[in-house]
């Protein structure tokens, strides 16, 4: 098989991944249901889904730890469906890092190079370079249990890329870190990806992380892709109620389609395009897209929703508030803390919210 020898031969090169018709069941449970996806060479693709959605199973299939029931996996021109893990030449960062506790940091980093038969001095030089790259210079002699969570994360990352794989897989690598460190590492991982350019498949259940890091996001649920697209597209043009609910915060209002016009909460909706044809459409309301109208502002050309403030939550950089519409529906809105924004009425006060036609999104109801 060419994979093992080829891995690391070309520096900084990357391979496209082609997943076609992959299925995997555990007894009656379908973890993956006829999944197909192409990942371009050098792309950063995130598999986003709730736990049990099949995202980790797909990663395990790519790494070769799980054999799919059907389907085909290709790395570049090579069909690797049947290749054992050690011949795939892909780097992987495990959720719990899986750093070998009986080796020091340099031993961990040097291990894949040792397996490839590199000389001692070459290994030392590359370990040093890898440590520099993840900003851990001089820590090669440390034992794994003497490292902090963030340092372990960096070592795991360095170990996964030190043998210059052309594909990198990451299984919720940042989930064990606290929020601040996680955001720091997100930027770090992005930086490394830009620098090294290997095709990356990143698994997470954190929608914010997916939006921050990815070139493309594949939202997966119950073993199927629900929507695949760029972060902006996924967030601003959700294709279903599930996507709109899972990514970001959303309120929904039922919409009635009458003769090519869309009506919600007793008003005709101004849309950016023609009203789409769907069975039972819902209006997706992102809290930050709703703008409070100043008294006297008429909101011409905008969709205006009027109601009473039911709840106010001060959150520092913004205020989250819930508005009860005349029909009884409750929607969430957010106002950034800014001197220029009109002041919010207290609980029970009347408020008018405006939504631009471009942000007026309809999705079909159901799951």
């Amino acid at each position, binding site marked *: 098989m060419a994979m*093992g020898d080829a*891995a690391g031969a070309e520096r900084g090169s990357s391979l496209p991944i082609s997943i076609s018709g992959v299925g995997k069941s555990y007894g009656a449970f379908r973890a993956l249901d006829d999944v197909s996806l192409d990942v371009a060479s050098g792309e950063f693709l995130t598999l986003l889904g709730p736990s049990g959605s099949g995202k980790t199973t797909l990663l395990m299939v790519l*790494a*070769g*730890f799980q054999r799919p029931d059907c389907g085909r996996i290709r790395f570049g021109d090579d069909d690797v469906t049947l290749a*054992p*893990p*050690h011949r*795939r*030449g*892909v*780097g*992987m960062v*495990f*959720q*719990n890092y*899986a*750093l*070998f*506790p*009986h080796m020091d940091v340099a031993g961990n980093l040097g*291990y*894949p190079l040792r*397996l*490839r038969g590199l000389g001692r001095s070459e290994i030392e030089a590359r370990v040093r370079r890898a440590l520099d790259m993840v900003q851990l210079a001089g820590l090669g002699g440390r034992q794994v*249990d003497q490292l902090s969570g963030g340092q372990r994360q960096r070592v795991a990352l360095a*170990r996964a890329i030190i*043998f210059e794989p052309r594909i990198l897989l990451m299984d919720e690598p940042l989930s064990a870190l606290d929020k601040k460190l996680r955001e720091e590492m997100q930027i770090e991982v992005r930086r490394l990806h830009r620098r090294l350019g290997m095709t990356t498949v990143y698994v997470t259940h954190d929608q914010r992380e997916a939006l921050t890091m990815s070139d493309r996001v594949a939202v997966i649920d119950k073993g199927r892709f629900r929507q695949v697209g760029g972060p902006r597209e996924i967030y601003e043009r959700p294709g279903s109620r599930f996507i709109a609910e899972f990514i970001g915060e959303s309120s929904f209002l039922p919409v009635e389609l009458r003769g090519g016009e869309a009506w919600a909460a007793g008003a005709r909706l101004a849309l950016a395009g023609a009203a789409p044809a769907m069975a039972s459409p819902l209006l997706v309301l992102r809290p930050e897209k709703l703008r409070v109208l100043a008294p006297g502002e008429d909101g011409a050309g905008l969709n205006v929703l009027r109601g009473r403030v039911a709840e106010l939550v001060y959150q520092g950089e913004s205020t989250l508030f819930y508005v009860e519409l005349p029909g009884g529906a409750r929607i969430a809105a957010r106002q950034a803390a800014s001197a220029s924004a009109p002041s919010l009425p207290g609980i029970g006060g009347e408020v008018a919210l405006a939504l631009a036609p471009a942000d007026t999104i309809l999705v079909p109801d159901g799951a």
Partner: protein
Amino acid sequence: MTAAAAQGPNAAELRADARRERLVLGALAAPGLLLIGVVALAPIAWLFWLSVRKGDSYTLEHYARLLHPSYAYSLQTTFELTFLVTAICALLGYPLAYMIAQARQRAAAILLLFVLFPVWTSLLVRCYAWLVLLQRRGLVNTWLADAGLIDLPLRLVHNFTGTTIGMVHIMLPFMVLPLYATMRAIDRDYVRAAANLGATPSQAFRHVYVPLSLPGLAAGIIIVFILCLGFYVTPALLGGGRVMTWSMQIERNVTYHSDWGAASALGVVLLAMALAIFWAVGRVIGFNRILGGR
């Protein structure tokens, strides 16, 4: 006590409360400490005291007697037996523990039951059972003869071979249990990570799995080794009087000669050797790894 006691409102009362709490906790531990003292430490101290007494005076005579060739010979037998049994247990126990650790939960429970079952059966019964199986006209010899593999019955019992077979059977669970506990706790992601980094299954096993299972192996070796050093019943029954171990010398000194001094000296030396083995293995593997840590 810290040099400067904390000042401030209520400080004295809080200090007094902390002192009371330490006293109460100490008192709660007292029964346990007392029990260990009475049943473990006192007998050892008494053993040591007996080994240096003759009549009303102190003497090293009992230790000097251990230099006699017959003791040296039985000590050599004891160590040969102990090393051999420990080595065979490790060789048989490691794959067995590995298989159980890799099995599914349910299968593992059943396999483990098979390992534990003999431990719940009487030691004597098991030794006599081996006697029946291994004797000249026993099951094993009959089978081998019927299969045409041997012409004359093999001498499988009443000698070193029989003793070794019986002791391996009795000691194996003590090797398998700590090994299994350690192996079960090895996260499979370690082996996966090795494979992902390019290790073949056999390389991943040798470079990652085996080193991580070493603490369990060391614990098993120490337990089996120390149990073997002082083992009595099996060598006495299956050795047929031809295998003389130190434990049998101790028994002889007490039963035939009523010589508690010599028996105690043997006991003390055996204890010292057991501790030396524990120390030696601990130096290589690290004590806290054997005693449960990582």
